[in-house]
């Protein structure tokens, strides 16, 4: 392996960090340069992520023969140094992050990035945190990357601040600070009991525990789980989510679409690793932990989350809140499937995860456009938040001077038939989010339901599987009803509507994300095959553990 290729895993972390620092040093007036740096950095991340993903597949069997790569930062060997580990799931999530990041960045160029300072810096730091959280193989490092992505998300949420954003940011920050404290308690308790923070070293040490230590370890894992569930938007820890995502500006909300999935990823990864500790402990006959209890808890929490999402979807009056609730439904479905713990269900769930991230991200950007369409110029002048939309607003009665080249709806290349585009994009997004045929959402839900029904037929008493089937279909129906209602109000009523001029920069990312979803539908077979390999490697974490711990010898 060439020395350059060996350092590839660290690129998705270092590149956005350097880009963020560079953008910070350039003046606001050098906008073209800032934007170029931002876009180049995300394109570089995309290239690095695609390459990393390719390296974990069979395409390059001589580099990482087992499909797992490890990178010891500073050449300090595991388990003492911090390692980055990459397998197929990590590679997939990295590619997904770069795609969403690129879409959000390009979408913001239309006008959102000029509403307040430092949008591109914050977006780069958010991407750095998300990439790092996916890559790291160290528990405390995971905490640090979580904090980086959260700190950046606070800034992005407040971007172009108005009363609504500040109010929801207050709730968001308090909830996440509390989540961070729980995370710290869990991590330090795990260190106190096992004496390691390396995620690959953890299963072996945990399996050797017994008695009170084992109980303490289980407690620590449960506390850590609560922190992850808060991030994942699990009921009853998700009341902050719809309001926060609805308040954020469109590109920021589009980038946030990946954030709940970081929590899901952490649960999947640690669940896979700690689950292997159970297998080890069972072999030695000293198991105190009852994984079925935890999994059962996750199953019922997932069902409750979906129920909450359904009620919220039906009650929401605002499109952006509705999209937020559909995100809760998707988190709930993933948690339910993870809790059910049937091996054939995992690959369709991952397919659903990819599709739902792309769809919600596109939907949030579309929401930003529709909101502009239904705010008439008179209304915009009358509302007190108008300066916030036009040029930023600062509390304490001080108003910032409008940005040079103040964004104007009338400037730029107008897309003909903007309403037609928005209507079409809305229809596609509805099909994707509700899981109606013929797009990727349907493929994913169909695969999940058919696997669940197959599993139910084998068992004598399969109420859990049937409940999953019932709630999934009910969730699809509820969001279809709610979205159709809002769509009719938005596109078929002419009262209070002014046809906006869309810019290519604004509409392009939405179209591209929808096209990716369509491509995912067309290539569902190969994609599902790849995801089955991914799921299989998650169920056999032995290779991951061995590869990471092998950095000890390969100095």
């Amino acid at each position, binding site marked *: 392996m060439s020395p350059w290729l060996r350092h590839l895993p660290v690129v998705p972390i270092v590149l956005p960090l350097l880009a963020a620092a560079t953008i910070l040093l350039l003046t606001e007036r050098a906008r073209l340069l800032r934007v170029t740096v931002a876009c180049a950095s995300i394109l570089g991340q995309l290239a690095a992520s695609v390459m990393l993903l390719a390296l974990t597949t069979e395409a390059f069997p001589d580099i990482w023969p087992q499909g797992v790569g490890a990178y010891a930062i500073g050449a300090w060997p595991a388990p003492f140094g911090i390692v980055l580990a990459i397998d197929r799931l990590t590679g997939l999530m990295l590619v997904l992050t770069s795609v969403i990041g690129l879409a959000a960045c390009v979408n913001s160029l239309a006008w959102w990035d000029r509403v307040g300072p430092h949008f591109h810096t914050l977006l780069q730091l958010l991407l750095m945190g998300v990439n790092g959280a996916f890559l790291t193989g160290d528990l*405390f490092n995971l905490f*640090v990357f979580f*904090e980086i992505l*959260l*700190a950046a998300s*606070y800034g992005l949420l*407040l971007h172009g*601040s*108005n*009363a609504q954003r*500040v*109010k929801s*940011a*207050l*709730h968001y*920050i*308090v909830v996440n*600070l*509390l989540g*961070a*404290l729980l995370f*710290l*308690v869990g*991590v*330090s*308790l795990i*260190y*106190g009991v096992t004496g390691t*923070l390396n995620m690959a070293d953890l299963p072996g040490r945990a399996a050797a525990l017994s008695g009170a230590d084992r109980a303490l370890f289980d407690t620590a894992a449960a506390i850590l789980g609560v922190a992850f569930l808060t991030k994942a938007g699990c009921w009853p820890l998700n009341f902050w989510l719809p309001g926060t995502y609805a308040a954020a500006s469109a590109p920021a909300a589009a980038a946030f679409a990946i954030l709940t999935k970081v929590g899901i990823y952490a649960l999947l990864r640690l669940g896979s690793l700690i689950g292997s500790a159970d297998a080890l402990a069972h072999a030695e006959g000293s198991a105190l932990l009852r994984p079925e209890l935890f999994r059962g808890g996750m199953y019922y929490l997932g069902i409750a989350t979906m129920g909450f999402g359904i009620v919220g979807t039906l009650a929401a009056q605002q499109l952006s809140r509705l999209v937020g609730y559909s995100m809760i439904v998707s988190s709930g479905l993933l948690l339910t499937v993870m809790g059910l713990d049937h091996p054939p269900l995992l690959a369709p769930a991952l397919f659903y995860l990819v599709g739902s991230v792309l769809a919600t991200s596109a939907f949030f950007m579309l929401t930003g456009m529709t909101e502009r369409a239904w705010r008439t110029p008179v209304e915009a002048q009358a509302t007190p938040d108008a300066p916030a939309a036009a040029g930023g607003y600062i*509390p*304490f*009665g001080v108003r910032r001077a409008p940005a040079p080249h103040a964004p104007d709806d009338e400037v730029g290349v107008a897309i003909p038939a903007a309403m037609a585009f928005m209507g079409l994009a809305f229809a596609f997004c509805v099909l994707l989010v509700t899981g109606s045929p013929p797009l990727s959402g349907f493929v994913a839900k169909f695969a999940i339901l058919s696997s669940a029904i197959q599993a139910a037929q084998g068992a004598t008493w399969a109420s859990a599987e049937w409940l999953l089937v019932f709630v999934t279909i009910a969730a699809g129906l509820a969001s279809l009803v709610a979205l159709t209602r809002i769509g009719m109000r938005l596109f078929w009523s002419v009262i209070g509507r002014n046809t906006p001029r869309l810019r290519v920069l604004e509409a392009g990312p939405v179209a591209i994300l929808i096209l990716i979803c369509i491509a995912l539908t067309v290539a569902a077979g190969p994609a599902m095959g790849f995801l089955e390999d991914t799921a299989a490697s998650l169920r056999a974490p032995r290779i991951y553990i061995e590869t990471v711990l092998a950095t000890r010898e390969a100095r």
Partner: protein
Amino acid sequence: MEALVSVAIGILCGSGLWLLLRPRTFQVIVGLALLSYAVNLFIFCMGRLVIGRAPIIGTDGVADPAAFADPVPQALVLTAIVIGFATTALLLVVLLAARGLTGTDHVDGRESG
């Protein structure tokens, strides 16, 4: 000593939680600060409570690990303090902005009842 430290962490944690559930933003932020003190003390304790032992092994080579304190929790607690400090400072700014924009210090931005 263990009992004393545990009671101290418990009191900090309890007061922090109570303040966190109060309706005023300033109470919430003080509650979060108290909770983070409790958590930082907790992390520190995970390296076991010992007195008079350095966390650094000298240059003379291999030494008895029992004679030294565990340096990892000390490094962790430093990181946690820095991160907690920064995010609390950010929350303080948001609190002031919310007060300025809504005219009240209620966490929901409007007085209840």
